[in-house]
C-alpha cells in the first residue's frame, strides 16, 4: 500500500482517526487520505497550491473531525452490542450458574414486586374519593377506662353535627343486615343505614340513578334504597330498568333510586344496600352508643383544629346533660383520618412483609454477587489480557456490569411473571380481609418498580465484583505463574466475598428470627383454650323482622319453638342460641353492682362492668362450655322465676376469690331487680382469641326485667353427630316451615370460625416462614460457595501439608476454621440486628416477647448447623486430596 508522505493535513487525519471506532478506522482513514491526496494533486496540477490552497486543504481535512464525531454513537452502540453478545455468551456457557442466579433473582424481584403492588394499592394510593385526605372518622373516647374508638349516641351526633364548624359536612351510618325477599330465596344482605350528607362527605354519587333527596331521609318518605353494583349484577340479575322498581327489604317495599359504582366500599366492601335514616327520629338516649360518624373537614382546617373544636363541643354537652356526664366524666372525642381508619391495622403486617421481601432480595443479590466474584476470579486472566491489550478500566467494568444487568433484567422478567401469579393468589385468597384488595393490580407503576428493582439489583450485585476484578495491577497474573496469580488475586477477592457472606448470613438470621417468632406465636394461639368445643358445631344467624315479630313474646316464642324443632332433626344432638357467639367480637357491656358491696369500685374509681350475652337454656351444653359451679338456665328462668344470672370464672374470681358466689346477687341499675347468681362457667373467648379473659355475665334470652332482650337477631348453634354442614338443609327446612321469608345467614361451622380467628397470624407466619426458608437455602448456598472456593484455592497447600504429615483434623481445622468464623460473625450481626428489628413486630406476636431468647438461640443454632452442613462436601473434598495430585495441581 502506498505510504503517503507526512504532510500537515495527513498528520491531522492520522490523529483524528484515533477517535474513530476501530471497526471503521482503516477505511475511514484511507478514504480521507485518498480524498486529500487527490485534492492536493489537483490543486498542484493547477499550480494553485499557494497559502490559500494549503489553508483550504487544511480546512477540508478539519471536516474529517466532524465526520469522526458523527461516527461516535456507532461506537457506543457497537460496544454495547458487543458487551451484550459477549455477556449472553458468558451466561449461556455456564448454564448452572445462570440458572441458580436467575432463580434467586426471580424469587427476590418477584416477591418484592408482588408485595409492593399490595403495599402500593393498600397503603400508598389515596382513597378513591375527591380530596380524600379531608375525610375523617369521629369516635368517642373514654380514656378513664382506656377506651378509644367508641360509637356515638344520637344526641351526641346531633350536637356534633350542629355545633362543629371545622367540618364541611358530617354524617352518621349504621351497618346492619336486611332480609331481601321476592328475588328467589330469601337472602340476608349486608346493609348500611346512612344519614343525610353521607354521600357528600365522601364526594361520591351513584353510578346510575341518583342519591337520596333530603326529604327522603324523613320517616314516612324514606321507602327508597340505593343498591350496590354487585347486588345489581347478582341477585337482581342486571335488570337494566332497575331504577324506579321496588325491592322488598325486611318486609317493606323500597324503591331503588340509585346503583353505586362497583368500587364503592364504605362502610365496608360487602355492603349491598344503603337505606336513608334520620338519627333524631330514633328516640334513643345519650347512653346508647351505636352510630358511626364520618365527616369532611373544611378546606384548610387541620385535624388539630377539629380536635380542639370537638373538645369544646363535648364540654358543652356535659353542661347540657349534667346527669349523664357526672358518671361519664372523661368522655372525649377522637378524630382519625379515614385512610388511617381503613388501613391502620394492616400497615404493620404489610410493612413487615415488605421488609422481609426486601431482605430476600438483598440476600439474593449477595448470593449472585458471590457467584460473580467467584467467577470473576476465574476470569482474572481474561480480564488482565483485555486490559493489557488496551481496554480501559471503564470498559471492563462496563462489560461486567452489562453482564450483571442482563442477568438482573432476565431475573426481573421471570420475577414479574411470579409476581403476577403471586398477586392473583393473594387477591383471590385475601387471607385476612385486607381492605382495598380489589385495587391491587400489576399496572404501570408496578412495572416501573420491577424495572427499577431489577436495575438496582443488577448494579448492587454487579458493581463490587466488576470493580474488584478490574483493579489496576492485574497484569500481575500474566507475569507470574498461574498458581501464584490465582492466590494473590484470590486473597483480595476473598475479603469482599467474606463480607458478602457475612451480610447474607446476618440478613437470613433476621428473617429466620422473625419467622420463628411468628411460628411460636401461632403455636401459642393454637394452644389457646377457647373455653368451648369447636368440633361438630354449626352456627347460623337469624334476624326476625320487626314487621312480623313486633313484640317480645313473639320473638321468644319463635326461638323457643325453632330450637325445639331443630333438636328433633335426625343427627342433631343439641341446639341453642346466643345473641353474640364466641370469637364474634360483638357483645354488649353493662356496669353492675353487687348486693352488699354497692360501694365496690374498680381501681379507677368506676363501677365494675362486664360483657353480657343472652342465651337459650341449652346454649352451654351445645357449645360444650363447662359449668364449674351451680346450674344451667331452664325454661323457667326469666320472667316466671326470680331473675337469674350466670357469670364466668374471671368475674367470680375477681369478686369472690376462690369462694363460690352462693346466694350472691347483682343488679344492672338502681331501679332494676336483683339477679340471683345461679352458676359459674368457664371463661370463653367471646371476643378475639388474643384477648385476655374478662368479666362476663349470661342472661336468659327471654324478656328480662332490666330491659335487655329478647334480641331479634340471634345466632343458632347446633351440635351434630357427624359433619355439621350435612345438617344445613334439614335445619333450613325447619326454619322455612316456621317462616318462609327468614333467611339463614352466615352459615359456618365453629371450627371454621376458630380457624379464621388465627388466619391473620397463620398468614403472616406462612409468608415469613416461606421467605425465611428461602433465605436459609440461599445462605447455605452462599456458605457452600465460599467454602468450596476456599478449598479449591488451597488444594496445593493442603497437599503439601498432607505430604508433611498433617492429620485429617488439622486439615478440617484449616479449611473450616476461616468459614466458621465468618458464620459466627454473620450470626452475631444478625442477632444484634434482630434485637433492634423484631421489636417493630411485637404487636403481631402472641404470648411471646420480641426478644424471646429461645427463638434467638434456636435460630442461631439452626443456622450454624446448616452452615456446617454446607461445609461438609467441600471438607470431604479437602480430605480426599492426594498429596501427589495436589502438588501437580496447577
Amino acid at each position, binding site marked *: 500500500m502506498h505510504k503517503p508522505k507526512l504532510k500537515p493535513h495527513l498528520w491531522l487525519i492520522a490523529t483524528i482517526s484515533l477517535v474513530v471506532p476501530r471497526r471503521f478506522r482503516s477505511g475511514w482513514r*484511507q478514504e480521507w487520505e485518498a*480524498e486529500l491526496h487527490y485534492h492536493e494533486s489537483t490543486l498542484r496540477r493547477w499550480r494553485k497550491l499557494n497559502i490559500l490552497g494549503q489553508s483550504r486543504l487544511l480546512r477540508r481535512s478539519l471536516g474529517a473531525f*466532524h465526520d469522526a464525531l*458523527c461516527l461516535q454513537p456507532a461506537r457506543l452502540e457497537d460496544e454495547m452490542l458487543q458487551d451484550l453478545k459477549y455477556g449472553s455468551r458468558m451466561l449461556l456457557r455456564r448454564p448452572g450458574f445462570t440458572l441458580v442466579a436467575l432463580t434467586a433473582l426471580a424469587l427476590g424481584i418477584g416477591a418484592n414486586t408482588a408485595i409492593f403492588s399490595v403495599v402500593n394499592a393498600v397503603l400508598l394510593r389515596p382513597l378513591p374519593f375527591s380530596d380524600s385526605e379531608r375525610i375523617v372518622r369521629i369516635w368517642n373516647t373514654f380514656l378513664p377506662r382506656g377506651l378509644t374508638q367508641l360509637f356515638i349516641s344520637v344526641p351526641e351526633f346531633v350536637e356534633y353535627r350542629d355545633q362543629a364548624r371545622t367540618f364541611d359536612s358530617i354524617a352518621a351510618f349504621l351497618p346492619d343486615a336486611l332480609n331481601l325477599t321476592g328475588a328467589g330465596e330469601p337472602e340476608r344482605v349486608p346493609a348500611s343505614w346512612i344519614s343525610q350528607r353521607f354521600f357528600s362527605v365522601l364526594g361520591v354519587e351513584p353510578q346510575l340513578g341518583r342519591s337520596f333527596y333530603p326529604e327522603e331521609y324523613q320517616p314516612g318518605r324514606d321507602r327508597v334504597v340505593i343498591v350496590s353494583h354487585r347486588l345489581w349484577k347478582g341477585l337482581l340479575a342486571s335488570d337494566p330498568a332497575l331504577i324506579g322498581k321496588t325491592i322488598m327489604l325486611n318486609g317493606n317495599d323500597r324503591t331503588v333510586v340509585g346503583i353505586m359504582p362497583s368500587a364503592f366500599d364504605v362502610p365496608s366492601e360487602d355492603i349491598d344496600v344503603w337505606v336513608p335514616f334520620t338519627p333524631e327520629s330514633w328516640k334513643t338516649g345519650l347512653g346508647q352508643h351505636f352510630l358511626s360518624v364520618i365527616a369532611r373537614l373544611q378546606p384548610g382546617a387541620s385535624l388539630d383544629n377539629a380536635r380542639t373544636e370537638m373538645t369544646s363541643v363535648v364540654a358543652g354537652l356535659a353542661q347540657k346533660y349534667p346527669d349523664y356526664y357526672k358518671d361519664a366524666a372523661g368522655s372525649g372525642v377522637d378524630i382519625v383520618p379515614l385512610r388511617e381508619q381503613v388501613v391502620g391495622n394492616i400497615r404493620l403486617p404489610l410493612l413487615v412483609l415488605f421488609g422481609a421481601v426486601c431482605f430476600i432480595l438483598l440476600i439474593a443479590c449477595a448470593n449472585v454477587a458471590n457467584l460473580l466474584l467467584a467467577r470473576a476470579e476465574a476470569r482474572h486472566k481474561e480480564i488482565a489480557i483485555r486490559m493489557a491489550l488496551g481496554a480501559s478500566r471503564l470498559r471492563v467494568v462496563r462489560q461486567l456490569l452489562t453482564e450483571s444487568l442482563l442477568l438482573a433484567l432476565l431475573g426481573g422478567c421471570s420475577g414479574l411473571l411470579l409476581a403476577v401469579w403471586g398477586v392473583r393468589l393473594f387477591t383471590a385468597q385475601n387471607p385476612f380481609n385486607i381492605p382495598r384488595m380489589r385495587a391491587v393490580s400489576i399496572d404501570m407503576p408496578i412495572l416501573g418498580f420491577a424495572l427499577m428493582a431489577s436495575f438496582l439489583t443488577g448494579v448492587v450485585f454487579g458493581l463490587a465484583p466488576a470493580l474488584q476484578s478490574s483493579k489496576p495491577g492485574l497484569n500481575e497474573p500474566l507475569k507470574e505463574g498461574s498458581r501464584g496469580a490465582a492466590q494473590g488475586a484470590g486473597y483480595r477477592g476473598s475479603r469482599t466475598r467474606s463480607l458478602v457472606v457475612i451480610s447474607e448470613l446476618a440478613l437470613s438470621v433476621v428473617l429466620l428470627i422473625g419467622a420463628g417468632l411468628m411460628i411460636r406465636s401461632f403455636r401459642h394461639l393454637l394452644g389457646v383454650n377457647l373455653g368451648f368445643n369447636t368440633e361438630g358445631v354449626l352456627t347460623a344467624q337469624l334476624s326476625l323482622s320487626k314487621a312480623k315479630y313486633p313484640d317480645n313474646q313473639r320473638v321468644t316464642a319463635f326461638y323457643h319453638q325453632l330450637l325445639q324443632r331443630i333438636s328433633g332433626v335426625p343427627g342433631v344432638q343439641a341446639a341453642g342460641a346466643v345473641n353474640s357467639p364466641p370469637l364474634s367480637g360483638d357483645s354488649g357491656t353493662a356496669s353492675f353492682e353487687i348486693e352488699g358491696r354497692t360501694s365496690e369500685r374498680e381501681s379507677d374509681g368506676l363501677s365494675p362492668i362486664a360483657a353480657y350475652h343472652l342465651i337459650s337454656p341449652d346454649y352451654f351444653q351445645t357449645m360444650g362450655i363447662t359449668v364449674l359451679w351451680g346450674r344451667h338456665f331452664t325454661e323457667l328462668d326469666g320472667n316466671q322465676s326470680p331473675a337469674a344470672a350466670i357469670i364466668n370464672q374471671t368475674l367470680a374470681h375477681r369478686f369472690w376469690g376462690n369462694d363460690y358466689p352462693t346466694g350472691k346477687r347483682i343488679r344492672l341499675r338502681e331501679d332494676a331487680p336483683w339477679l340471683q347468681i345461679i352458676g359459674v362457667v368457664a371463661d370463653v373467648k367471646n371476643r378475639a382469641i388474643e384477648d385476655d379473659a374478662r368479666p362476663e355475665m349470661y342472661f336468659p334470652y327471654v324478656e328480662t326485667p332490666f330491659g335487655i332482650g329478647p334480641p331479634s337477631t340471634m345466632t343458632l348453634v347446633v351440635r351434630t353427630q357427624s359433619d355439621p354442614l350435612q345438617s344445613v338443609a334439614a335445619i333450613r327446612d325447619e326454619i322455612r316451615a316456621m317462616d318462609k321469608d327468614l333467611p339463614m345467614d352466615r352459615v359456618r361451622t365453629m371450627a371454621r370460625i376458630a380457624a379464621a380467628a388465627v388466619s391473620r397470624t397463620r398468614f403472616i407466619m406462612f409468608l415469613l416462614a416461606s421467605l425465611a426458608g428461602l433465605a436459609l437455602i440461599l445462605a447455605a448456598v452462599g456458605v457452600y460457595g465460599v467454602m468450596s472456593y476456599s478449598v479449591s484455592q488451597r488444594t496445593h497447600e493442603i497437599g503439601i501439608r498432607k505430604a508433611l504429615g498433617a492429620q485429617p483434623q488439622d486439615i478440617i481445622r484449616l479449611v473450616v476454621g476461616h468459614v466458621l468464623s465468618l458464620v459466627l460473625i454473620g450470626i452475631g450481626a444478625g442477632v444484634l440486628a434482630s434485637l433492634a428489628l423484631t421489636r417493630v413486630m411485637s404487636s403481631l406476636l402472641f404470648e411471646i416477647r420480641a426478644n424471646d431468647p429461645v427463638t434467638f438461640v434456636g435460630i442461631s443454632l439452626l443456622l450454624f448447623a446448616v452452615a456446617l452442613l454446607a461445609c461438609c462436601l467441600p471438607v470431604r473434598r479437602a480430605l480426599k486430596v492426594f498429596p501427589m495430585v495436589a502438588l501437580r495441581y496447577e
Partner: protein
Amino acid sequence: MTTRTSLSHSAAVILQAVSNGYRYGFDIMDVTGLPSGSVYPALRRMEQSGLIDSKWEKQGLAQEEGRPPRKYYEVTPTGVDALAEALKRYRLIERILPARKIKPSRQRG
C-alpha cells in the same frame, strides 16, 4: 425504505450529485459547495440506509498513480426512488446541479 420521505435538502442535493456522477467526497463538496462536515456524515447515513453504495478503487490503478485507492459512491435503486421522491419537493435541485460531463475513464478501474 424509511428514509425516503425524510431526506433533508442537503441530503437530496448530495444524492443528486452522486447520481449526476460526482462520486467521491471532495468532488461532491466542490460541486455542491457544502462543507465536508455535512457531506461525509450525510454520505455515511445514506449508505447505512441503503440509498447509496460504495466501492473501493482497484489497488493497481491507485498504485500506478502513486496514491491511496479512493472510495467511490453510487446510487442504489432504492436511492433512485428516494431521489425521485425528494425532487418532487425540492424542484430546484435538478436545475442547479450540472450533470458531470467528463467521466474519468479510468475510475472504474
